[in-house]
């Protein structure tokens, strides 16, 4: 068959021919994209407030999920374990602020980036030491998350939505809305936006950077926990899960490092884009192209908008 036809016509014929599969693909991409967006949100929160590209975000996700499941295995009730995990994430935020951010204040970004790598090592070691390295099953049922699927007989076929995926989308939306409200309407949130705009100006009007950092890292920890629970329910909770966090990088590039709506839109674009690409164009290359497709999508966008979809345009002066 003509390769041009295979690339430009055939996939669309397939889409039109089986609308149920098309809808299903979009849905899978939407759910995946939501979760990517959540991971990216963790990065954006920290980057905005402290200018740190937090390499440890992926491992924080695993660590949070592992703490939750590990505590439950020790016989703690699921909801209490959830609260305790939140407590652990808060302690982590305080610890990071005290031991890493405060001594390194005013250092170049790349040094702080490096410090978060040290943090990654620490968390991997500590997590495995305390909870063991074997993968664990996410306690989705105990947490009251739904299971099973809802099937819709529409579009001349079957579209099946997993309840857990719907829950993931709902929880992600609530988290995002909650965070947006927090930033917009609370005192701490306003202070946080001030810090994001200009550190020194914020300091000069009496905002405590240290407190803000703790808040932001804790917020990122909460987001990490939510993502960890959702991804954990999709496969299992193990250190291999941190690979997924790398997918947030193209999302960040697309959405810009500093924009919360950017992270969400970027996540959806990457999620849906890679599923469509893998499903309709992947077979042309033998499949399995998802591993790099997201980056290529991001790269293509970047060539036209070098600061991402929602990134601030930086005016360069001497």
């Amino acid at each position, binding site marked *: 068959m003509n390769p041009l036809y295979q690339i430009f016509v055939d996939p669309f014929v397939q889409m039109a021919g089986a609308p149920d599969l098309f809808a299903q693909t979009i849905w899978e991409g939407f759910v995946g994209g939501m979760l990517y967006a959540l991971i990216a949100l963790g990065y954006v929160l920290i980057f905005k407030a402290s200018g740190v*590209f937090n*390499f440890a975000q992926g491992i924080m996700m695993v660590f949070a999920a592992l703490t939750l499941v590990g505590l439950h295995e020790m016989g703690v009730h699921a909801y209490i374990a959830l609260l305790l995990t939140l407590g652990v994430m808060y302690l982590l935020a305080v610890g990071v602020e005290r*031991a*890493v951010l405060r*001594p*390194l204040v005013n*250092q*170049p970004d*790349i*040094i702080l*980036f*490096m*410090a978060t*790598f*040290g*943090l*990654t*090592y*620490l*968390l*991997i*070691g*500590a997590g*495995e*030491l305390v909870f063991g*390295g074997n993968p664990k099953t996410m306690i989705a049922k105990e947490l009251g998350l739904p299971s099973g699927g809802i099937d819709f007989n529409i579009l001349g076929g079957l579209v099946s939505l997993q309840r857990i995926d719907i829950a993931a989308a709902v929880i992600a939306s609530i988290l995002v809305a909650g965070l947006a409200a927090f930033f917009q309407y609370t005192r701490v949130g306003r202070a946080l936006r001030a810090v994001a705009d200009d550190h020194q100006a914020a300091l000069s009007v009496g905002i405590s950077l240290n407190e803000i950092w703790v808040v932001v890292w804790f917020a990122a920890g909460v987001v990490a926990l939510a993502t960890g629970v959702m991804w954990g329910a999709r496969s299992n909770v193990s250190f291999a899960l941190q690979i997924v966090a*790398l997918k947030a*990088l*193209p999302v*960040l*590039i697309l959405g810009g*490092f500093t924009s919360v709506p950017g992270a969400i839109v970027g996540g959806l674009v990457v999620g849906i884009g890679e599923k469509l690409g893998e499903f309709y164009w992947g077979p042309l*290359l*033998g499949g*399995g*192209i998802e*591993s*790099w497709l997201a*980056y*290529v999508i*991001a*790269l293509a966008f*970047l*060539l036209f908008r*070098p*600061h*991402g979809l929602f990134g601030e345009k930086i005016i*360069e*002066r*001497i």
Partner: protein
Amino acid sequence: MFYREAGQFKATYAADQAVFPIRQDRIGLALILVAAYVAVPLLGGDFLLSSVMIPFLILSLAAIALNILTGYAGLVSLGTAGFMGAGAYAAYKLSTLFPQVNILVWIVVSGFASCAIGVLFGLPSLRIKGFYLTVATLASQFFLQWCFVRVSWLYNYNPSGAIEVPARALFGLAITGPSASPVTRYLIVLTIVVAMTWFASNLVHGRIGRSWMAIRDMDIAAQLIGIRLYPAKLLAFAVSSFYAGVAGAMMVFLWLGAAEPDAFNINLSFLLLFMVIIGGLGSLTGSFFGAALIHILPIAVRQAPASVGLTIGGATVEHLTYVITGAMIIVFLIVEPHGLARLLQIGKQKLRTWPFPY
């Protein structure tokens, strides 16, 4: 008292511009080279040579590759492992296609293959900057790794999907393959690394290196003083991926002995970036320090309990290694955020004024 330049007069510009203007530095370097060439092979056991020194040198060269791009030209890259892989696969293809040519030639030539690929992925670098450029290199990393898995031609259609190293010799002395002694492999790696470091040192201290640094510090200003950004950035990509390619080829041929595509995964790229940062951005010496810290420190931590007679389970040691390495990285950064190379500089300065610091 012992380390100062008093009494050393420079009569020519060349002497003034030398990389090591102080005689004691030159003596120190000579001593290090003697130690590396004579003392280490004579005194070190097989384990030291093949599991500590050879990986350390190869990783140092890869760190230099990245340092050229990131430390000197200011382009943060997360694709080094992919470029190393390109070099390794090129060397493998070339050496199996033309077995009569000496393998050392192919190890060096393979750098050019990786160089071409590096330039290709460096093309967007004019338009995209900073962390955003990093994603372009990430795309190269994942795409190249996919190629290593998918393009069977690259690994000669081996069902194992890996590249194996054929045994090759130089003047009748085995240099690759199982019967190559660690000492031989070590000396070859050392020679290549020393030669390439010397070349890199000349490059970064010369016009090209200075134009890279100007771009790194402020690209618009560099443009205004007449540096053509695009060729300079592409050259940085080219040189960097050449070095990475040679390091990758050496990694497979002189260290691992066989490699699956996974040997060049994203983790290696990250590790190299961290070596460069912790060693010191824009410092060749720093690349060696960084490689030493990231590669040798975990080995030392792993060996520590056994050497004092403690028997802890392997897994626990591994976990502790992670914790200790992570903590050490943070501590080092807090003590000296500009990398270990800066520590050396400070030390030198202290020595110079010792014993009367004021």
